[in-house]
């Protein structure tokens, strides 16, 4: 029995008066242009079948099972639900309203021990707005503030139901480079020393009830790093500069089990072969092309394309806010990587590769390879029906399914749009239109 369907039905019962029921459907979408999400190019005239909350078939030769509800996708596109890597969805309402914002650890005495699942709020407007943009899964991190470690991130779904968490404590976050140096006492040296010490203390804590007196980390933080040092929990390391990426890769000489993911990597293209050889995946911003600091002097929009070409597994991510870097715009970012193919000297991605950077690849990095971000049998029933090419600016989702549940489309923004469709207040104030 699919847990999502259970929770979906429960919510439908309590919220029936307020919104559309959230029931998992067995449904087939036919005659659509289908993009599987695995890097392959889209195919026309295809069908996707969702049953019991899972994908059971997808492709051009697939027939809708007899008796199953069918949605005609003629003229439309179908993709897996998109996966947004490194977001803060569910952790804030308004960035600038501090009391609503749980996206970083603040002045907490704890860092690595912080667990985002304790604060996730599926009712945040950013969750519903992002879901309306075709994103159905995400990784959520907490930003380092009082220490170089941010805490334990989670993998979530964006379904309109009370349970966001798909995998709690899915990864740990650490920042080295400039921001890590600032936090650790002012220099990269300090950050690296703090990092090594923390992992040593975690190693020393394994299987021991007592810890020696000369420790820097508090007990919860040290224990939280045990799965990292054992390689049981991925470690997302935020660095940008080529030299910093190399020094992160070298950490495996001391801590061989580290399951590394590089986050940021503006200069990743300069060390692409080393990243590929080390089999370390990257979550990169697609379009950074300015020397915002001295650690990303060589930033270019060709960064992702060059890394992919070298064999690095690259997801597009880090779209955390409500400004230019909104998760719902990840498709625009991916589309820009396709645009680079027409730009002499640039390295872009094929359309299929670009979609993969915001669907199957981030899902793989998050530990859900073949299970999310892809329309393959056995994967979660996350399907988005688009009114056109999903990477194009003019296109938007028509329907969004998560675990086979068709999702509601209303949110704060859509309600405002409808209220102010006209400005007529001759009979009653706008406050009565809702």
């Amino acid at each position, binding site marked *: 029995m699919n847990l999502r369907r259970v929770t979906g039905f429960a919510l439908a019962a309590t919220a029936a008066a307020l919104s559309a029921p959230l029931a998992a459907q067995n449904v087939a979408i036919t005659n659509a242009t289908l993009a599987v999400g695995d890097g392959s190019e889209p195919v026309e005239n295809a069908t996707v079948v969702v049953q019991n909350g899972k994908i059971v078939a997808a492709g051009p030769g697939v027939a809708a099972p007899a008796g199953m509800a069918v949605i005609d996708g003629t003229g439309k596109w179908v993709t897996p639900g998109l996966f947004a890597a*490194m977001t803060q969805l569910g952790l804030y*309402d*308004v*960035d*600038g309203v501090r009391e609503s*914002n749980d*996206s*970083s650890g603040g002045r907490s005495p704890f860092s690595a021990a912080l667990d985002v699942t304790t604060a996730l709020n599926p009712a945040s407007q950013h969750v519903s*707005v992002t879901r309306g943009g075709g994103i159905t899964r995400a990784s959520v991190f907490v*930003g380092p503030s009082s220490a170089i470690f941010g805490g334990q991130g989670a993998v979530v779904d964006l379904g309109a139901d009370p349970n966001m968490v798909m995998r709690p404590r899915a990864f740990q976050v650490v*920042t080295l480079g400039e*921001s890590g140096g600032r936090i650790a006492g002012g220099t990269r040296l300090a950050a690296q020393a703090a990092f090594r010490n923390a992992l040593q203390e975690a190693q020393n804590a394994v299987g021991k009830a007592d810890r020696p007196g000369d420790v820097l980390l508090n007990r919860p933080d040290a224990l939280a790093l045990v799965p990292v040092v054992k390689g049981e929990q991925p470690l997302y390391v*935020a660095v*940008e500069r080529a030299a910093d990426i190399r020094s992160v890769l070298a950490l495996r000489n001391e801590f061989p089990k580290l399951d590394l993911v590089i*986050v940021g*990597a*503006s*200069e990743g293209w*300069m060390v692409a072969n080393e990243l590929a050889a080390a089999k370390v995946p990257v979550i*990169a*911003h697609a*379009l*950074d*092309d*300015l*020397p*915002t*600091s*001295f650690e990303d*002097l*060589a*930033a*270019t*929009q*060709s960064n992702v394309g060059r890394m992919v070409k070298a064999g690095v597994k690259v997801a597009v991510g*880090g*779209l955390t*806010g*409500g*400004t*230019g*870097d909104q998760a719902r*715009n990840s498709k*625009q970012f991916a*589309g*820009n990587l*396709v*645009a680079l193919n*027409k*730009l*002499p*000297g*640039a390295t872009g991605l094929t359309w299929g590769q670009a979609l993969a950077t915001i669907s199957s690849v981030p899902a793989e990095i998050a530990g859900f390879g073949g299970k999310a971000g892809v329309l393959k049998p056995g994967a979660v029933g996350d399907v988005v029906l688009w*009114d056109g090419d999903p990477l*194009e*600016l*003019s296109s938007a989702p028509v329907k969004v399914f998560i675990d086979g549940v068709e999702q509601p489309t209303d949110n*704060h*923004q859509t309600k405002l749009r409808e209220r102010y469709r006209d*400005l007529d207040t001759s009979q009653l104030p706008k406050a009565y239109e809702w």
Partner: protein
Amino acid sequence: MTAAGALALAACSTTADGGETRSASAAPAKATASSDAPYPSTYKPYPGAPTALVGATVFDGTGKEIDNAVVLFRDGKVQAVGTGLDTAGYTVIDGTGKYVTPGIIDIHSHLGDYPSPSVSAHSDGNEATSPTTPEVWAEHSVWPQDPGFTRALANGGVTTLQVLPGSANLIGGRSATLKNVPSRTVQGMKFPGAPYGLKMACGENPKRVYGSKGRMPSTRMGNFAVDRQTWIDAQGYDGKKRNLAKESLKGVLDGKILVHNHCYRADEMALVIDMAKEMGYKVTAFHHAVEAYKIADLLKENDVCSAVWADWYGFKMESYDGIPENAALLQNAGACVVIHSDDENGIQRLNQEAAKAQAAGKRMGIDIPDAQVVRWLTLNAAKAMGIDGQTGSLENGKMADVVLWNGNPLSVYSRPEKVWIDGALLFDADNPKMRPVSDFELGQPGMGDVK
């Protein structure tokens, strides 16, 4: 922001605009410094070949689309735009399958004032030591070596931009209107004859910045009180004893300096419109204006432009009601729309932002033609900056600020192929040596790379 940068709290959107202006004569200013027009523009157009763009689809900036068009320019000026024109004497560039627009104009930028790298030594956009600083001029902060200018040109097709002071202050100072030409000096970028703008800000930023210092304003009512008293104090200024602050304010009261007012909320914009009436000036444009759609009628009635993002929302309290349909609703109500960036990345994709705003409108039943959408980035911006007589559209006699796009500029798959400023080719995607490289990037990793 980089993904790693995202690990720190997003810090944008607390900055604002700035401003610089000059007297609004249509003729280029003479390059002589004087007390009424100091720091004059030294910009002169670079040489260019007489050029004919043939066969492209033209969005001319006025809202007109011309298919299979010929665009002729020489001596820095647009000579003719139409179909079947004689190209004798012009270098012909085949535009088949391509698109031509006027140079893109960003009405709200901080390039140069908050340049890259964004180290604290470069933080020159907010004179946050007094809530009213009409005496400061953004041009005195502009670092011409900001690599951001080159990205705006190559990826965004931006040929003109207004650099504004930030929004820490109620009155932030004068804006600088610049041609996006690489230059050793800011004077070499100044748009000849462009009027100055005055950056103002309402709402959260000024009251937060000064309230946190324990001084006025700490509330929205404080914002208005300080603004009003400042205007009253300026009204009697006779210029006999020079006062830089009052010179700027008097310029506004005399209609020579254009007010660009950072303001998010509809109710506050309505109050500002009344303040302007009370004090005897005009607001040219509200910038950021995420709630403009709630008062589209009032904005139209008062002839105030709204300079907006496509879809920014929810990053600060006063942006909570931002919706992607804002621009389309304004256009539908007959109000003036400008798409702006306020961002060194967004300025590289103003065309894409406009396309998203267009699409959001279409989904709610507001169909806005591509050519009209391009006007949001060109002629409307020029009008609100007081330079629509010189640029912003491909009309005879105007500056030949022209972008040849390799596809429809409202598609995510399109990029500028060639960009001309005053008829001089200053970016060519097909020629690596025609990518400008700022002094800062010389000899550094990635120099001259396709960015």
